[in-house]
């Protein structure tokens, strides 16, 4: 049983990291662009609102979302029904359980990265935009040629911390699914917890922790290598 569930935990965690991470970074960047737009009033109000999920307690959030995802009484299925979408058993269906957890984690975390992106966007000198406007560049052109290239370093930073966070997925499956259904949300840390602290297989659990560390180290090295390559190019 162990080898198989370790493999499942690994691939579930990769799923969460590789789909949830880029999604979260993209959402954060888009939200930062919105919040930072010159057209928007009450910027700090919106920033605060979008940031609120970040400071909330993950366990409490998971408890709340478990009910939002309820197949019959949950708000999400109710909202989807307005668009003619049939009820989905979010946490009971192996296909949908992980996407449901990803959605929750994007909601919970985007505000943090958004603030970092806002700091990055504000550090871009205004003269660049002015000069390009004089040269006749439109909004899209400016975004493509100024904003995007200059926000790349921030994106790497955000990418690394998001990855490190996501690899540690634990509380959401612990509270919402206990790793089910059919092990579809069993994460590496959850497996480590179950093996180490429920079944007292300390050696096995330590091995998982070591693999976890190796994955994070490899991920961080790859990202810093890509970053170096990028800054040389």
């Amino acid at each position, binding site marked *: 049983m162990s080898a198989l569930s370790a493999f499942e935990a690994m691939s579930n965690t990769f799923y969460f990291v590789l789909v949830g991470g880029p999604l979260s970074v993209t959402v954060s960047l888009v*939200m930062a662009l*919105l*919040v930072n*737009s010159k*057209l*928007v009033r009450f910027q700090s109000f*919106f920033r*605060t*609102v*979008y*940031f*609120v*999920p970040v*400071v*909330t*307690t*993950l*366990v*409490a*959030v*998971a*408890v*709340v*979302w*478990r*009910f*939002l995802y309820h197949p*019959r*009484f*949950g*708000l999400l299925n*109710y909202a989807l029904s307005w668009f003619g979408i049939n009820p989905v058993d979010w946490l009971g269906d192996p296909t949908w359980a992980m996407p449901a957890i990803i959605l929750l984690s994007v*909601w919970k975390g985007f505000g*943090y990265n958004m*603030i*970092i992106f806002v*700091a*990055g966007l504000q550090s871009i000198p205004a003269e660049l935009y002015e000069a390009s406007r004089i040269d006749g560049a439109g909004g899209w052109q400016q975004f493509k040629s100024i904003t995007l290239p200059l926000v790349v370093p*921030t994106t790497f*930073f955000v990418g690394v911390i998001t990855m*490190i966070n996501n*690899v*540690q997925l*634990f*509380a959401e499956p*612990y*509270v919402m699914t206990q790793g089910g259904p059919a092990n579809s949300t069993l994460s590496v*840390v959850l497996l*480590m*917890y179950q093996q*180490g*602290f429920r079944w007292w297989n*300390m050696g096995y659990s*330590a091995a998982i*922790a*070591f693999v*976890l*560390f190796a994955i*994070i180290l490899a991920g*961080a090295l790859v990202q810093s290598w890509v970053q170096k390559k990028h800054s040389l190019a």
Partner: protein
Amino acid sequence: MKSIRSIILHGLMIVLAIMTLIPGLWMVSASFMPAGEASTFPPTLVPSSISFEHYETLFTRLEIGKYFVNSVILSVVITLISLFFNSMAGYAFAKYRFAGRDRMFRLLIAEMVIPAQVTTLPLFLMLNKVGLVNTYFGVIVAGMATIYGIFLIRQFALSIPDSLIEAARMDGASEFKIYWSVILPLCRPILVTLAIFTFLGTWNDFFWPLIVLTDDSMYTLPVALAILSGEHVQDTELMMAGAVLTVLPVLLVFLALQKYYIQGIMIGSVKG
């Protein structure tokens, strides 16, 4: 043209803000619903009558006050102790010259990549050997100093002019006195930021207290809530009241001091 775009943009931002807030609003609303009302179709958004029965149940039958107090005490104690150690270490890294200082600091920064979960198991085994498992001190000891905290303080302390420290030394102040009466007051803004970070982080922490505390009267609020929510799957309104109590303190601290909190994130992101 510009005003139309502005209206669309604001509309979008408002819709997104509502989507962000809906889980929280529904949580508060459902916590006041009479038992069973959250499990109806179509879903009710506003309670038909305001009921405090779930909060009563939490405080009487489920004794949640106990967990609340545990969380408050642990969060405050860890915040104070770690501020003390982090500020001393950060100050030392910024202003003292000693062999291997920069190498040690770089090593610390590199270690930030190692997530807490990885070190949990060896830490647990060590605490087990010295008999600190299932004690409050076992929870505290893991949070007494943090790399991130040391880093924040160091970056801030670098900007303090050496001449101030030299002047105090000339006047015959002891090293501890310099730290306590010169450095700490100057570091106040960053200390406030770090205090908020630590308090929120400790309050919200789940993994470590779940592992170290085995006796259920010692649980922190998030641990108790997670365990209770497994036993009360059907009691939606009750669990929403529990979630409200868990989130409320951190939300209030954040809203009151958000300026410092946001600043802290921005400092941390400007190149380590």
